[in-house]
């Protein structure tokens, strides 16, 4: 009788896919996601697209906050510079979209070097504050650099065509987002189990010990920050394409906070958590809407501004309740479920 899930070597512990059923279900999930755009209606599809784009961004932040334990309060700044990096190169200078995506990663990465180099020497809230300041200052910088960014007018962005394949339709664009999300997931999972990833986690868990073990703290923190900004920038490019129009207003400060909420609700420090958290946070407004539509008959009658605000309040309430009763996040729920499933009917 199976009594549990035991690992016998380090290799087994770090392998990404450790059993045939996991292989099977992962494949099924990917296939389902590939087919989904042809089955779903445009509304449901827009949720899938948003989830996939947000996953990329959340995984980017996860490298910094989840793995390395550094807090950024201004990640929307990298999302924004990424979107502009793409829009300027592709829409303004007519370069191929792939170059645009590269630029969407490199521009925020360069910005993160400037922000990070001086501020990562110190511990604590320091990076959180400088990134917060960065995300406000970059708005003014973009608005002022009219010759490059069109200022407040913004830049219209077309759906891309890569190697002769057009991503014009909603379904095709979702496939592009899906491919990016899967690539990012693999990249971050592999970073996590490499020397670099172990160094990140060592810094998070105990930086003094990490230093003693010969990890160059400043260099590795900076590396985590730059990688995180690069990935977030790619997400920014996809988000800009989705909006079809890049301007400063499409990227409110709230997105920085929402990204952190995703990581915490999902379960800090885990790529799976970032994915689960994204699904929950993106679908939460829709879920509250559904709850409300149950009472829609009365709602229509007494409809006022106030009733609409109840939905936002419910959203805040769910976040609070989640943190209160499940501080390990959705990943914690997932692990509990898995253990119960494997051990049932025994507790241990």
């Amino acid at each position: 009788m199976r009594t549990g899930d035991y690992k016998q070597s380090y290799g087994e512990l770090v392998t990404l896919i450790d059993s045939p059923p996991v292989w099977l279900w992962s494949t099924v999930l990917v296939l389902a996601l590939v087919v989904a755009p042809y089955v779903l209606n445009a509304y449901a599809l827009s949720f899938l697209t948003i989830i996939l784009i947000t996953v990329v961004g959340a995984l980017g932040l996860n490298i910094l906050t989840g793995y390395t334990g550094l807090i950024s309060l201004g990640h929307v700044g990298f999302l924004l510079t990424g979107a502009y990096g793409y829009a300027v190169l592709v829409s303004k200078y007519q370069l191929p979209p792939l170059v645009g995506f590269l630029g969407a990663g490199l521009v925020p990465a360069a910005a993160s070097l400037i922000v990070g180099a001086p501020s990562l020497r110190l511990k604590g809230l320091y990076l959180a504050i400088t990134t917060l300041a960065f995300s406000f200052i970059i708005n003014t910088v973009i608005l002022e650099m009219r010759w490059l960014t069109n200022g407040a007018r913004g830049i219209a962005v077309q759906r891309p065509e890569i190697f002769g394949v057009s991503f014009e339709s909603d379904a095709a664009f979702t496939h592009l987002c899906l491919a990016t999300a899967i690539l990012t997931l693999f990249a971050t999972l592999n970073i996590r189990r490499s020397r670099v990833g172990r160094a990140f986690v060592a810094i998070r868990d105990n930086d003094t010990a990490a230093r003693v073990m010969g990890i160059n703290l400043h260099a590795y923190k900076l590396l985590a920050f730059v990688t995180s900004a690069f990935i977030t920038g790619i997400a920014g490019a996809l988000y800009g394409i989705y909006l079809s129009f890049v301007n400063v207003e499409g990227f409110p400060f709230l997105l920085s906070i929402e990204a952190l909420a995703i990581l915490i609700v999902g379960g800090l420090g885990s790529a799976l958590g970032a994915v689960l958290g994204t699904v929950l946070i993106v679908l939460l407004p829709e879920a509250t809407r559904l709850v409300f539509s149950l009472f829609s008959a009365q709602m229509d009658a007494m409809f006022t501004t106030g009733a609409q605000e109840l939905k936002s309040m419910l959203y805040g309430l769910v976040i609070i309740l989640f943190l209160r009763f499940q501080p390990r996040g959705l990943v914690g729920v997932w692990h509990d479920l898995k253990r119960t499933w494997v051990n049932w009917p025994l507790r241990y």
Partner: protein
Amino acid sequence: MQYFLQLLISGLAIGAIYGLIAMGFAVIYKSTGLVNFAQGEMTMIVAYIAWTVSTTGSGNILVVSLAAILAAVSLGLVIERVVMRPMLGEPVFATVMVTIGLAVILRSSINFIWDAYPHGLDIGVGRGIVRVGGIGVRTGQIAVIATLLLLLAAIWAFFRYSKTGVAMRAVAADDRTALLMGISATRVHALAWAASSVIAGIGGVFFALSYDLSPAMFQLGLKAFPATILGGLDAVLGSGIGGLLIGLTENFAGGYIGSGMKEVAGFAMIIVVLMIRPFGLFGERDIERV
């Protein structure tokens, strides 16, 4: 010269409001180790309650101030008891996220309870204009600067001489030892939330008096945050002074460099200051450089 003085006085007036809210941040950080992201929203709620009292009940300045202080105390205590205390012992990160959830709820409650229109707080005084040598200032603006200075003195005395003040400093310095010495940490936390709510609430009411109430008022929290970083997150008095400095910086940047610079001047300033003094101008030197 007149131009300079007018900028100076306007900068001090808005800076005093930032300072009051910044002190609200610092009081909570000092006693609980948390950054309260709902500070701006709490400020806004208190101001709206004051407005409701002034329109439905009495517009008398004493009644309104008393009601506002009572409302602020209850708001702080309720939030601490219902939302924050259950999070005691959870990771700091999760607790800070709770304040973000709280901010969302409070922000939405404005349109839920009141409406999206701007409103003016009228309590008979504070809106009049005093002119000295061509420089104009509203009486409410003079009052807020005076209030900030008085409050700074009072808080300094409180932490220095009163038993509760010393207890709060003890909990902040080392909560475990403080606990062993017989100081109730939860009582100190409750007190901190109530005090923070009142101090920031005063700032909110003054803002409503000199400017106006609107559902966008919570953004004051975002302006006051650099002030508290500048003064030192754990420095209550320093944060108040930080607010004045940010107000002055904004106005001088707006008046001499250009209007586009005004809103980011505060953030630009803290970046520079943090490079030199990462713990803020008046914060305690507790920097780990690993």
